[in-house]
């Protein structure tokens, strides 16, 4: 299988959270992933995209989110979720379990913890007032099919 890249851009509305995780699931289908791998990818993407919708753009529905998906022959999937919103003050603090700036809106502060646990690598880059880029790396176990 050749290396692949697919990029999708969409407006930051909650309805697109589902769209984004369906697209990510469709992207990895050629690798014949397990149900577990698909669920982990969908959940991690859902977390990253809903963070952009909720936090980056304050649930205003304004702004765009870019979803970039890359795959290598060996089954390494890299998914980048990028927004151009308010950015994160203290990335380390934000990544800690239970940390949230939206406790009043029934948020639990578990998004980054879930992304970390459901992927092989999580990179968070952010700049105040510029935006945030979350990179999710997942190594699919494709050895069994070969």
């Amino acid at each position, binding site marked *: 299988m050749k290396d692949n890249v697919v990029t999708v851009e969409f407006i930051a509305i*909650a*309805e697109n*959270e*589902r769209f984004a*995780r369906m697209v990510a699931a469709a992207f990895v289908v050629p690798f014949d992933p397990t149900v*577990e791998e698909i*669920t*982990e990818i*969908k*959940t991690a993407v*859902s*977390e990253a995209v*809903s963070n952009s*919708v*909720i936090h980056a753009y304050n649930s205003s529905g304004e702004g765009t989110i870019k979803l970039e998906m890359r795959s290598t022959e060996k089954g390494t999937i890299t998914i980048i979720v990028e927004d151009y919103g308010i950015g994160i003050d203290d990335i380390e603090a934000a990544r800690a*379990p239970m940390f949230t700036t939206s406790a009043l*809106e*029934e*948020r*639990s502060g*578990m*998004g980054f*913890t*879930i992304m970390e*646990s459901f992927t092989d690598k999580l990179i968070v880059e952010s700049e105040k007032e510029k935006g945030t880029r979350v990179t999710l790396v997942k190594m699919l176990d494709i050895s069994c099919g070969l």
Partner: protein
Amino acid sequence: MQIEFEMSDDIITAILTGELDHHSALSIREDIDHAMQVYRAKNLILDFSSVSFADSSGIGMIMGRYKKVKEKDGCMMLCGCSVYMKRIFEMAGIFTIIEETEERGEAMRQLKERGEENER
């Protein structure tokens, strides 16, 4: 996501179907709060057996309902969580404060038992 309610004494069961994310949680939590008010129910069972997807918004929705139920001195139980839901709910420590069963009937039985104990 769809939601259906069943009433039995002062226990309301919310049967959820579909995908539970930030978008769907917004209306689901309102529906549940509204139903609990209308039926004056103290106790709540959330049935997840037909939920095909959940993320951290599910955690927030559960914890939010738990707070409301506790305010009225009620009890809450979860049932039918998939292995993936259990994984994320466990990360958030949900099962240390809210009990969970496989079957709805069993959750109902346990809640009724607790109610009888409280009356004694």
